[in-house]
């Protein structure tokens, strides 16, 4: 499980005993020797998500998509279950775009983000 998800699970677990147990080394930093300044990206959630949980667009300090999402999850813990499945991967019918390109790593959301990257969390269109 990726680092941001571990942190999110930790927050979740404090509220919900049925959350998965924390893996070992859960406090290990993902980039322990990365001393670059973290970029400020812009995070947007589609209106269909905001129908359930209001989430104004915001700037987040993050090096990767998972770190960006973890910021939002920290503010609104219920959001995690709307975006990620039980194993911490991106839900099957959601997509995340970074600067117009779909993320490559749907399981760990490790795709990097740059300063001024624009991260969109959207849903696939299906159903009736």
């Amino acid at each position, binding site marked *: 499980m990726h680092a941001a998800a571990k942190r999110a699970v930790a927050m979740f677990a404090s509220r919900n005993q049925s*959350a998965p147990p924390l893996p070992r080394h859960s406090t290990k930093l993902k980039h322990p020797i990365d001393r670059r300044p973290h970029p400020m990206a812009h995070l947007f959630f589609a209106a269909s998500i905001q129908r359930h949980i209001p989430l104004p667009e915001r700037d987040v300090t993050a090096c990767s998509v998972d770190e960006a999402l973890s910021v939002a999850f920290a503010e609104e813990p219920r959001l995690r279950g709307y975006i990620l499945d*039980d*194993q911490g991967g991106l839900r099957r019918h959601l997509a995340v775009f970074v600067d117009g390109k779909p993320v490559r790593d749907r399981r760990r959301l490790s795709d990097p983000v740059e300063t001024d990257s624009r991260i969109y969390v959207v849903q696939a269109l299906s159903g009736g």
Partner: protein
Amino acid sequence: MNDDRLLIGTRKGLFVFEADGAASNRWKQSAHHFIGEPVSSALADPRDGSLYAALNLGHFGVKLHRLPAGATEWHPCATPVYPPQPEADAEVQAAAEPFTNADESPDSLTEPSTNGATPAPEPLWSLEQIWTLEAGGPDQPGILWAGTIPGGLFRSDDHGETWTLNRPLWDRPERREWMGGGYDHAGIHSVLVDPRDSRHVTVAVSSGGVWQTNDSGATWRQTAYGMQADYMPPERREEPNVQDPHRVMHCKAAPDSLWTQHHCGIFRSTDGGEHWTRIEAQPSSFGFAVAAHPHEPDTAWFAPAVKDAFRIPVDGRFVVTRTRDGGRTFEQFADGLPPVPAYDLVYRHGLAVDSTGTRLAMGSTTGGLWTSVDSGESWHEVSAHLPPIYHVSFA
């Protein structure tokens, strides 16, 4: 609980109907909760009067909400969460995920091995649907059971605030052999708590037979012997773990009397599920729903369709069947139901009987809702224009 309310879970929300005064077969809609959202299951807890609604938001997953007795605002409960999946299983699942980077050719994805040397691919250990919600026994306030897809049984000891997967059943090697029935992955749709002993719980799986515990879920045993799965190769048709009981109900006053509407017909047990006997009914033995009389173990109702490959009423004539002699004979009732041709289908949780055994309610995939006050012999149309109905219960 006086059975004067109906909970109707539909593709577009949870509807509540209330009995309309003295006319006991007249119901009026009193509430529409979660407008536009699919409600896969609902529960009125007889122990404290609270309501629960399980939503399936599709893109955003499964959610569970609770409305305490006397409250006006629903509040979100925790949702059952599966434990971390072993990495090898997760790798197989990742290869099957639909969204990949456009630059990545599908050919580069790893195909799961099909040479028989590896176990059957596991579904992603992630909640797809709460298929049924049931209250624990009257001596277990706050305890809830949730039957889920994929193949899970969860228990909450605190009104849904936290949930725990029952590992003794989940970890049974037979669970890996369960097949999807109705949905892509196997699921638990029936949970029966024994009124004589709350530690005795019976669950039914599409497709994985019938499992029982006598120790609150610490150990389980398969109890689908006698069922017959005509869809399997001949040498495997009587294996209990391949059976697809669409719905299992018991007589509350005589819980050893069990009925199932199985994928391949109607089966009955009079010995607590140790042995099942096949029953032939007219116009058909195929269907999804069954309601068992709360006091008369020989009485049950069904809503038949032609057969598994033809899931519409026989000859377009929508009927309810009833047996009062343990399945030896069946009566057919159509009074008050739509005229020929009608194409209503009643899902697993779409047929309910009240605590007296005289009032019934039934909802269809076409959005029809009917009630009966004469033990199913005649019906009153409450609405013909609801969304597709998944769940009907008296509350």
